[in-house]
C-alpha cells in the first residue's frame, strides 16, 4: 500500500479546524474522539502522531469508514454520556464541530473532563460579523460559518458564540488553557476581537484546580 504520506502533507490534507486540533495534541498520548465521523482526524493522530486513539460515532457509515481506516471506534450516542469509560483513561478527549448539536453541553463537557485530563473542543462561531450582519439586515437566523444546515434542518443546532462559550466555561468551573481561531479556512495569526472576526474557535479545556 502506498499510503506513506509525509507529516506535513497529511496535515495539509486535514480540514482546517482539525489541523488546529491536531496541533494541540502532543505525540504518543491517549485520545478519545467524540463524534469522530469518518475518522479523518483520528487517523491522522494515530498514523502521524503515534497517538493511541479511540473514537465514538453515531452513524453506521461513519463507523464503517473508521474501521476501513483501521481505527478502533464504537458506535454510540454522546447524549448518553461516557459512563463506561473510567476516570482519566485518556489524556485528551476531542469534540469537533459537534457541540451545537448536543442537548446538554454541561454534561458532555463534564464527561470529557472526567474521562480525559484535557478536552479539545471546536465549534462554529455565530458571533462572526457576517452572522451578526445577516441577522441585522435580513432579520433571519444566520447559518453558522462552515455549517450548511438551516435552523429547521436535522440535526438541529443551537447557536452560540465564543463569548457565550467563555462565560459558560467560567460558570461551570472549566478553564480555557489554550485557544486558536479560524477566519474562514485560515488560522488567525493575531487573535484580536475573536468573537467578531473568527468563524471557528478551538479551545483546550481543563478543570479549574480546586
Amino acid at each position, binding site marked *: *500500500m502506498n499510503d506513506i504520506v509525509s507529516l506535513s502533507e497529511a496535515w495539509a490534507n486535514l480540514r482546517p479546524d482539525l489541523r488546529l486540533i491536531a496541533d494541540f495534541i502532543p505525540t504518543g498520548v491517549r485520545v478519545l474522539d467524540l463524534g469522530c465521523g469518518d475518522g479523518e482526524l483520528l487517523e491522522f493522530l494515530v498514523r502521524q502522531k503515534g497517538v493511541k486513539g*479511540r473514537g465514538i460515532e453515531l452513524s*453506521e457509515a461513519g*463507523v*464503517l469508514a473508521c*474501521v*476501513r*481506516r*483501521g*481505527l*478502533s*471506534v*464504537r*458506535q*454510540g450516542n454522546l447524549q448518553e454520556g461516557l*459512563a*463506561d*469509560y*473510567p476516570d482519566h*483513561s485518556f489524556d485528551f478527549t476531542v469534540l469537533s464541530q459537534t457541540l451545537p448539536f448536543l442537548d446538554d453541553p454541561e454534561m458532555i463537557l463534564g464527561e470529557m473532563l472526567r474521562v480525559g485530563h484535557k478536552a479539545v473542543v471546536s465549534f462554529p462561531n455565530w458571533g462572526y460579523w457576517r452572522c451578526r450582519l445577516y441577522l441585522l439586515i435580513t432579520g433571519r437566523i444566520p447559518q453558522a460559518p462552515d455549517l450548511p444546515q438551516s435552523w429547521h434542518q436535522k440535526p438541529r443546532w443551537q447557536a452560540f458564540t465564543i463569548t457565550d462559550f467563555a462565560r459558560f466555561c467560567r460558570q461551570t468551573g472549566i478553564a480555557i488553557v489554550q485557544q486558536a481561531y479560524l477566519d474562514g479556512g485560515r488560522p488567525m495569526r493575531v487573535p484580536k476581537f475573536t468573537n467578531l472576526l473568527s468563524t471557528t474557535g478551538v479551545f483546550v479545556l481543563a478543570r479549574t484546580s480546586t
Partner: protein
Amino acid sequence: MENERSSADGIGVVETQYYTFAEQAPFVLESGATLSPVTIAYETYGALNEQHSNAVLVCHALSGSAHAAGLDAQGQPGWWDDCIGPGKAFDTDRFFVICCNVLGSCYGSTGPSSINPATGQPYGLRFPVVTIGDMVRSQLAVIEHLGIPKLLTVVGGSMGGMQALEWAARYPERICSAIPLATTARSSPMLIAFSEVGRQAIYADPNWQYGDYYSNGKRPDAGLAVARMIGHITYLSEESMHKKFGRRLQGRERFGYEFETEFQVESYLRYKGHAFTRRFDANSYLYITKALDYFDLTRDPLRPEGAPISLVQAFSRARHVKFLVVSFTSDWLYPSYHSREIVSALTAAGADVTYLDIQSSWGHDAFLLEVETMTRLLSSFMDRIAQEEGVALPPLRPVEEAPREAARPGIARENEAWAS
C-alpha cells in the same frame, strides 16, 4: 483489479480431520463429569505461517459443523463460505483458518450419538451435559495439537459468539483479538424458554425413547422438526417474514378450509424442519441447547455457588485483547442491547473495542446474510489486527466492493445449514 482471483476458484474440496485426546487422563467437564476419550472434528483452510501467528479460529452456532468453507465430498459449500477463502474477509492466502465441530454435536465430534466405550452402545442420555466452557477447552486441545500458542483471532456468531467471549474471558492470553457477532454474555430467560420448548417437542415424540433411539430405527424426527421450526422463527424477524412469505399461499389460489399446508410460511417451516431431521441428531439438539442455556459469563466457574461477578470483572484479564463486536438492529433473539452490555463491560475493563449495530431486517440470521457489510468490517479489522500484531503477510488484494448475488436469502441462498 487484474490480480484479483475470482471467488469461484475458492478453497476447493476439503476433508474433515479428527483429533482424539483424553484417552488416558479423562477430560473433566465443568459439571464434574468426565469423558474419555474425546474426539473433535475440525477443518483447516490456508497455511500456518512459520511463526504460527496467523491462526484464526472460527466457531459455529447451534447446528453448524466443522465444514465452514470450501466444498465437502458431496460438493456442499461450508456454512461460512461467504467469508472464508482466497480474497474473502478471512483471506486464506493470509490466514490459517480452523473450525472445530463443538463437543456434544453430531458432525464427528464426541456427542450423545458417539459410541460409549464403556458399553459399546451410543451414549444417548448417558452422555454428560457439556457447557460452552467445555467446548472451548476442547478447542484449546485442538489448537495445542496444531502447535498454535496464540490465536490471531477467534470469531463466531450466536453460540459461536459465546465461544469467542468464553475464550476472551477464560483464555485471554491465548488470543490477540475476538469477534463476537450477534451474541450475548449471558443467555436470557427468553432464549432459555425457546430452548426448552424445542426440547419439550423432542421429549414429547414417542420415538425419542429417552434418548435410546439409535438401535431400533425409530427416530424422533417429528419432535426434532418442531424444535427446528421454532428455532427458525426466532432467527427471522417479523419484517423479514413479511418480505420472504407475506400471506402468500403455497401452490393454491384460495383457502381450502382444511388442515393442509396452505401458507408459504408454513411450507417453509415444514420443509426446514424436515430437512433438519436428515442432518441432525435430536439428542445433540438437547445437549447443545442446554449448553446455550447455561452460558453466563457473570458466573465464576471456580466458585459457581458464589455471588455473580460483574461482566467487567469477567473480562478483567482481557484488556489487551482487541474486540470487534457486531449486532443487528432486527435481531430479537440476541437483541443489540446485549451486545452493548458486552461493549460497555469491555470498555470499562480497558479493552480496545470496536462496535457496530448493523441496520438490517434479517433478524438473527443477519450475521450470515449481510455479507457485504460483514466482509468490509471483518476484512478491515483483520487487516488492522494482522498489522498491529506484526504478522508477516502477503500484500492485501483489493477487496471486492460489489455485493454478491448470493448475499440475499430467498434468491440464491437457501443453504441455511448454519443458522444459529
